[in-house]
């Protein structure tokens, strides 16, 4: 019997591979590369649809973490500050940021842009391990460390690369243009870009020495995150990576949410999924589309209102995710991580 397998899917092998694993994004990346980059006919076709896809997938995935937080059983008991205090604090901080946008706007934006690749790395790490557990692939402390390094490499690549966020947020750009820093930076980018793309493969090859190889979906999750931050960056198509990250997130959060709902209330899974997605779309519209105009109505500029709402909702999402995906504390943990019965 082959020791190589996809891993135990949540939905179906193809859906998990393409959507949660990121296979669809790799196909898209390949199409961009062979068709000649962002100036290609493919991008000309996809471009006009981008704002709508961005709203329905990426913006909706931000609101999904909030909807999930409040729909989670015992959320108010388990996360009193997150559920009760953070919304008002977020509102206060956003209002201050918009009021003093000239001074702090760029820093709020850079915080969001710097944190973003770390958040992607954490999602890739969590998903890769989740499929390992579900597929009966045991992960020791040493391997967990290797997983973390492999998933963090794309974050470090993005941090060093910038522009404006990451390293350039902390060190003046002119200083980075001086030697030897400029050469060191280019060297670090090659090293980190190579590590981002090759470490997941190395992990997979190492696992072949065991009786069961690393699930292919786990491998794919790590490779696609690395491709988003390296290849998409190179082709200036990174906006699409945010869509694929959102798609991945929406799929997994819907799976977990629907499992909870069906267990607690019964009913059909597609209906729960539709209600959940509908709530996420409605909240995304209010947060990203209506909320900024409230600040404009109050006399603030449109640019700072829209941009800082986006940045602050992102940061709120990063914070909420740090808590709601602590699966070991979750009553549904066994449900999603348990290997299939023999």
């Amino acid at each position: 019997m082959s020791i190589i397998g996809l891993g135990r899917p949540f939905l179906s092998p193809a859906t998990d591979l393409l959507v949660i694993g990121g296979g669809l994004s790799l196909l898209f990346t390949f199409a961009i590369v062979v068709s000649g980059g962002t100036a290609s006919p493919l991008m000309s076709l996809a471009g006009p649809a981008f704002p709508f896809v961005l709203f329905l997938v990426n913006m909706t995935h931000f609101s999904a973490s909030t909807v999930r937080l409040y729909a989670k059983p015992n959320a108010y008991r388990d996360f009193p500050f997150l559920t009760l205090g953070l919304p008002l604090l977020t509102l206060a901080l956003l209002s201050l940021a918009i009021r003093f946008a000239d001074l702090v706007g760029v820093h709020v934006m850079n915080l969001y842009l710097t944190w973003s690749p770390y958040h992607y790395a954490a999602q890739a790490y969590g998903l890769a391990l989740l499929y390992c557990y579900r597929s009966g692939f045991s992960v020791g402390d040493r391997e967990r460390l290797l997983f973390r390094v492999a998933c963090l490499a794309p974050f470090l690549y993005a941090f060093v690369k910038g522009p404006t966020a990451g390293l350039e947020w902390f060190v003046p750009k002119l200083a980075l243009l001086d030697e030897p820093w400029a050469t060191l930076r280019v060297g670090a980018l090659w090293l980190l870009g190579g590590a981002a793309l090759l470490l997941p493969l190395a992990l997979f090859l190492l696992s072949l020495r065991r009786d069961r190889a690393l699930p292919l979906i786990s491998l794919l999750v790590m490779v696609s995150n690395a491709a988003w931050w390296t290849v998409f960056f190179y082709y200036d198509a990174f906006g699409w990576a945010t869509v694929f990250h959102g798609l991945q997130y929406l799929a997994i959060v819907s799976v977990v949410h629907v499992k909870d709902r069906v267990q607690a209330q019964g009913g059909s899974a597609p209906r729960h999924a539709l209600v959940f997605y509908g709530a996420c779309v409605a909240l995304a519209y209010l947060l990203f589309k209506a909320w900024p105009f409230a600040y404009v109505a109050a006399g603030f500029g449109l640019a700072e209102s829209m941009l800082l709402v986006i940045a602050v909702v992102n940061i709120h999402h990063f914070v909420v995710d740090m808590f709601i995906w602590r699966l070991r504390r979750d009553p549904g943990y066994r449900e999603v991580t348990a290997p299939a019965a023999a």
Partner: protein
Amino acid sequence: MATRPETGSLALRVAFGTGLLLYGLAFVAGMTWAVVEQGRPPALGDSPLTLADRAYARGDLERAAREYRMVARIDASNYDTPKRLAEMLSRTGDPSGEIDQFHRATELWPKNPATHRRLGWAYLHNRRPAEAERAFNEALALAPDDGGSLHGLGEALLDRGRPEAAIRVLSAAASSWPDNAEIHNSLGIANGVVGRHAQAVLHLETARRLDPRFEDNLERARRAATQAP
């Protein structure tokens, strides 16, 4: 949602209630403002840049410039903002601002030949042909057959007093963009400068055929040809 906030301190519950109220008010205020001021609810494609573009199209240049500048200040990594701001500054007659913004756009997206080309033209329009030549060469390194960049490089070379080199580059531009009247006009002028009057007239006839605005240049070239020894 599934549970009600039965736990948490009184302070947290008050904060939650206040937050809910304020968010509700903000959403209603935002929707109302958009409907009253824009005549429609916020659209999915609305972004600071699209709304600034709309202000610009309406002729509200002050507002458009304010929004572009604020986006460039806060979201400094967005390649699109300096490009759009530069285009606006170009039309409102702020050449140094235009060059700065195109420069910033090339820094943010160094692999885009169109931005280098636009920067080259901005330099050229502001009588800085040496910098224009550099920018057009950057564009051509990325897209060697780009007619617009070849044309710009030819103009820059002509301005720098190198008409023979300009003719070579402009001929390549005319091959990749044969229906461009301005390229033929430039070729006509460059040929006139080096004394090839027959060639100059030929190119200016083509330019005039493609665009009647070049009639005067053609007449001048014909006069020069008849007066030439």
